[in-house]
């Protein structure tokens, strides 16, 4: 399987994603899926940019982490996001810690709007696969 294994993960390298304009269609699908309550017609539910930041991570020209399990999130919401705003993500691996068959990787992420303001930020913790005989580089 292709992807970035634990051994390949570069610490401290900064990665920026393309942007995504949040539309009322995104919000409507999200509200239908979750049945969260909308505050008003142009408010974007706070967990939606958090969900987009993971998808945006797949749009950079780099093999994605071979994630065995998503372990946790520490997340802060700094500003509200409105329909029509365009967000992108800046990410950086801050720590990697090896274990037997895998390793723990901590990534810092910022969600940035079209004005360059950080609207949400936090840390993701993943369990990332190590290379095996079959997947050795």
């Amino acid at each position, binding site marked *: 399987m292709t992807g970035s294994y634990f051994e390949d993960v570069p610490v401290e390298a900064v990665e920026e994603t393309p942007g995504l304009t949040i539309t009322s269609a995104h919000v409507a699908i999200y509200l239908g899926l979750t049945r969260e309550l909308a505050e008003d017609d142009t408010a974007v539910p706070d967990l939606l940019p958090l969900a987009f930041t993971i998808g945006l991570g797949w749009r950079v020209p780099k093999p994605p982490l071979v994630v065995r399990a998503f372990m946790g*999130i520490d997340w802060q919401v700094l500003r509200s996001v409105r329909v029509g705003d365009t967000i992108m993500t800046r990410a950086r691996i801050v720590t990697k810690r090896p274990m037997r068959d895998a390793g723990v990787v901590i990534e810092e992420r910022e969600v940035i709007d079209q004005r360059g303001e950080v609207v949400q930020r936090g840390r993701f913790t993943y369990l990332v696969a190590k290379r095996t005989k079959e997947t050795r580089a």
Partner: protein
Amino acid sequence: MRFRTARSNCSLGVGRRVRVLSYGSVTALSRRYFDEIQVGEEYESPGRTVTEADIVIFAGLSGDYNVLHTDAEFMKQSIFGERIAHGLLGLAIQAGLFTRATAPYATLAFVGLRWKFKGPVKIGDTIRLRAKVIGKKETSKPDRGLIIVQRTVLNQRGEIVQEGETDLMVERRQRP
């Protein structure tokens, strides 16, 4: 007569900000303020069965097509044995379950969360939310306070699949 009732309801909004939420069943008038919410309050939501459709829609919406959620054949060989729901789908569904577990708070902002994914949510699993108010903090602004809610997401076997704490900034009742 019905028209009159509607009009008189409308007049309530004059000079006061009354926001009617888009789902219609809940209005700003029934929201609970910081002062009314007590540490130790507990809520339990109804259950929600997570379907293959939920996962497909969430993959399309978020753009997260990780094989964990989208490749049934690959996942047969994994420790999970089948596709699992996105962690953030579980997180988003519990946010919706919270709105079905208790009367809405007069929330001004969702400030942050500390969250752990403890186990997989598989297609057909039924999850529910157990929540408890574990902290209240006054802030430098007199019109709002922070409410900390501990949340546990359980599956149909009572196993904890996700848990964590959320921080909500909630409006205070205007003082006389």
